[in-house]
């Protein structure tokens, strides 16, 4: 039905796709998987006409095509359902369903009665009974997703692309969605299904294509593919691969005997986390493993008070921390190095000096007046200790390289003398040299007695850097690897394991 060959797409400085082949057959559900940055979304955008490929061709229904706009692709029968519903929330359900192709009466006016009837029928076919005259926003997210699906189906789609459609659905809604997908498949529609949820893939998909770093690393039927093998393909690690120690700068092995300084219990956030508990001892580096969307960053943010929790407790050195307040967490000694360094970490317009001093300001001032001499001393110390390469303390942080920005952030937190350091992707997007330096620094900090929680998509970094690894999957702790069990093998097995209670526990 839809196939691409030799597809290539570059953005300035990044090669997003190279030489990608993909064939989606009518009447099959084709899984498209890969970690962050593997090129999934670029590929989808090429298929649906958002981007034009640099190389290769798209063949649709036996003929080469080139869609100028998403609308052209839609007209040809390729519909897309995005993670976030892209409908008009204030319009009625029926109008959303029929948007752009409303049934017209004699005078060219919209025939509302017919529209409502047709809309209701279309939704009923998907097993959804709602008043189609109500505004869309009054429906739940799942029902909205269904309306989007009904709309996609109603335009006589022959290819439906779904980008993480279940990320905000309840299990019951997921079941309905799957029923619809199977129905579509039986009608001969080709479905491209993107998801990180292993169990869903195995439940609904017939074939799979694995992308990594913009290339296809595997394609074929899903049924014969072992879960572990799939995870290893996604992560780019071979099972049982023996490698030389010391690829990373971690020395490994910290004290694992003392009392935990950080204890998080039963952290719960609707749709994101379900009863996550973990503990970190002083001088210990605990890794947080799992695939994208498994709840790693959410756990870190919940501990740091940056995400409101529905339930759960956080305690530092036995004393409870008020939830939902970054200030309270910081006072308790918890520091978070956020994943999105540019948006949530640095203050780009301020100088290196101001950025480092930012969190510690109250301590560095008397009666609200800033003690510049003390700030200069501290900034000087950290610039030297972390080897921050800057034209001077007054250079704007926005002008530094990624690695140096990250070091400035680390300095900001270290100036507070924290007890617990939460590092979310500390080495992402920084060059190799700086990466090694940051890794060595993490090691050093743990040696100094800091409790470190490390999140990294780089399995190697995670395994070698951590003394223990807590593995998350769909917001639940599924496994904890300790001591000799901290290996990539074990990690991948934990990620790939079939949950005991099935997907809908």
């Amino acid at each position, binding site marked *: 039905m839809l196939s691409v060959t030799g597809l290539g797409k570059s*953005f*300035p*400085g990044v090669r997003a796709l190279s030489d990608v082949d993909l064939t989606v057959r009518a009447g099959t559900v084709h899984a498209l998987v890969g970690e962050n940055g593997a090129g999934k979304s670029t590929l989808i955008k090429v298929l649906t006409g958002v981007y034009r490929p640099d190389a290769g061709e798209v063949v649709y229904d036996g003929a080469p095509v080139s869609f100028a706009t998403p609308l052209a692709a839609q007209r040809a029968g390729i519909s897309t359902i995005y993670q976030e519903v892209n409908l008009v929330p204030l319009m009625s359900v029926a109008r959303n369903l029929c948007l752009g192709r409303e049934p017209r009466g004699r005078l060219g006016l919209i025939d509302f009665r017919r529209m409502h009837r047709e809309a209701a029928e279309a939704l009923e076919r998907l097993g959804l009974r709602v008043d189609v005259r109500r505004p869309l926003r009054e429906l739940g997210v799942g029902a909205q997703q269904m309306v989007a699906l009904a709309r996609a189906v109603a335009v006589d789609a022959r290819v439906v692309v779904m980008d993480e459609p279940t990320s905000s659905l309840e299990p019951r809604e997921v079941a309905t969605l799957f029923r619809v997908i199977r129905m579509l498949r039986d009608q001969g529609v080709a479905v491209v299904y993107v998801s990180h949820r292993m169990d869903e893939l195995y439940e609904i998909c017939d074939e799979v294509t694995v992308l990594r770093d913009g290339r296809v690393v595997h394609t074929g039927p899903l049924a014969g593919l072992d879960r572990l093998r799939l995870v290893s393909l996604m992560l780019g690690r071979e099972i049982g691969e023996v490698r030389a120690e010391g690829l990373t700068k971690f020395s490994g092995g910290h004290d694992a005997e003392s009392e935990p300084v950080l204890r998080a219990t039963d952290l719960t956030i609707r749709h994101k986390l379900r009863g996550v508990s973990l503990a970190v001892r002083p001088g210990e580096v605990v890794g947080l493993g799992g695939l994208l969307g498994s709840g790693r960053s959410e756990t870190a943010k919940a501990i*740091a008070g*940056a995400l409101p929790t529905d339930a759960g407790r956080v305690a530092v050195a036995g004393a409870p921390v008020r939830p939902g307040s*970054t*200030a309270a*967490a*910081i*006072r308790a000694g918890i520091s*978070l190095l*956020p994943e999105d360094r540019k*948006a*949530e*970490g*640095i*203050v*780009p*317009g*301020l100088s290196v000096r*101001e950025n480092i*001093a*930012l*969190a510690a*300001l*109250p301590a560095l*001032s008397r009666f*609200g*007046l*800033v003690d*510049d001499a003390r700030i200069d001393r501290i900034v000087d110390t950290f610039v030297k200790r972390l080897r921050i390469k800057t034209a001077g303390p007054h250079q704007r942080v926005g002008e530094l390289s990624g690695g140096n920005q990250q070091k400035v952030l680390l300095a*900001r937190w270290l100036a507070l003398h924290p007890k617990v350091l939460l590092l979310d992707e500390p080495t992402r997007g920084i060059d190799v040299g700086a990466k090694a330096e940051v890794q060595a620094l993490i090691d050093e900090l743990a040696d100094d007695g800091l409790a470190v929680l490390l999140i990294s998509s780089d399995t190697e970094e995670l395994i070698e850097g951590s003394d223990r690894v807590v593995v998350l999957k769909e917001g639940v702790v599924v496994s904890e690897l300790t001591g000799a069990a901290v290996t990539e093998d074990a990690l991948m097995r934990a990620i790939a394991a079939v949950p005991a209670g099935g997907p809908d526990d």
Partner: protein
Amino acid sequence: MTELTFARPSLDRARLLRLLQDYGVYAGVLVLLLFDVAFTPHFLSVENFRTQAVQVAPVLVVALGMALAIGAEGVDLSVGSVMALSTSLISLYLGYGPWIAVLVALAGGIVVGAANGALIAFVGVQPIVATLALMVAGRGVALVLLPQLKDVRDPDMAALGSGAVLGVPYLVLIAAGLALLTAFVMRRTTFGRQVLAIGDSRPAARLAGLPVGRVLVVVYVSCGALAAIAGVLATARLSASDPTSLGTLMELSAITAVVVGGTPLSGGRVRVGGTVAGAVLIQLLTTTLIKHDLPPSWTQIAQAAVIVLAVYAARERGRR
């Protein structure tokens, strides 16, 4: 990333724009001064400079508060109404003596500022919407309290309006003092740095544990208090309380002064010196056109031209 390729050839232009934004306002003031000295009769007199300084004082005081709000990536549209409220309150409470009246007027400004701050920081209303609401409400309350112009005959208020120390009018001294205070707060205090951090990147400031809500409330309270002071100064100068017309369009004059002074609307930066120069520039521009008896519409066109220039320079910075 596409901009990387264009960066080199336009480097000089970028630097020029940076210079224009950083020092353009001072250059503008200088050019106007030179023009006036050369072509405006009787310009070079102490009396004239006193007049200009006195006239700019209330605008400048309001602009200082506006600079804080804009630095925190907000804006305060209610300043004009706060001036009206302040002048109403003075008139109503003058019976208790001028000090009490001024304190009540200040309290009025602080209350409006607190309402603005609470709406923005805790309820999460956009600054432009929240302060617009208070702009309408403030003027309404001012007119309910004092429906029409009323003379102020208190001798102390009159002295504040027209008195001077060593030839420098009180109004100018107060405005200069407040400008220095604002500059000091922005440069030397924790609060000043926190305002800039919040204005530059609110999520980062929140994650860094800054008391974002509290700082925002203080910003808008300061802005309201400064506007109330400006209302007191204007009342003293006019020796009358005129809530119907005092402070109308003041928010626009203040924003103009701040933006022309090189403070970007995107927040994260406050230029007190530039704001002072911006207010002076607009004052000189208006004055020059009045002194040459050009039609009032010219003043508006000239102001518009200056704003467009300033915004153009600021836009380049915002895109970088």
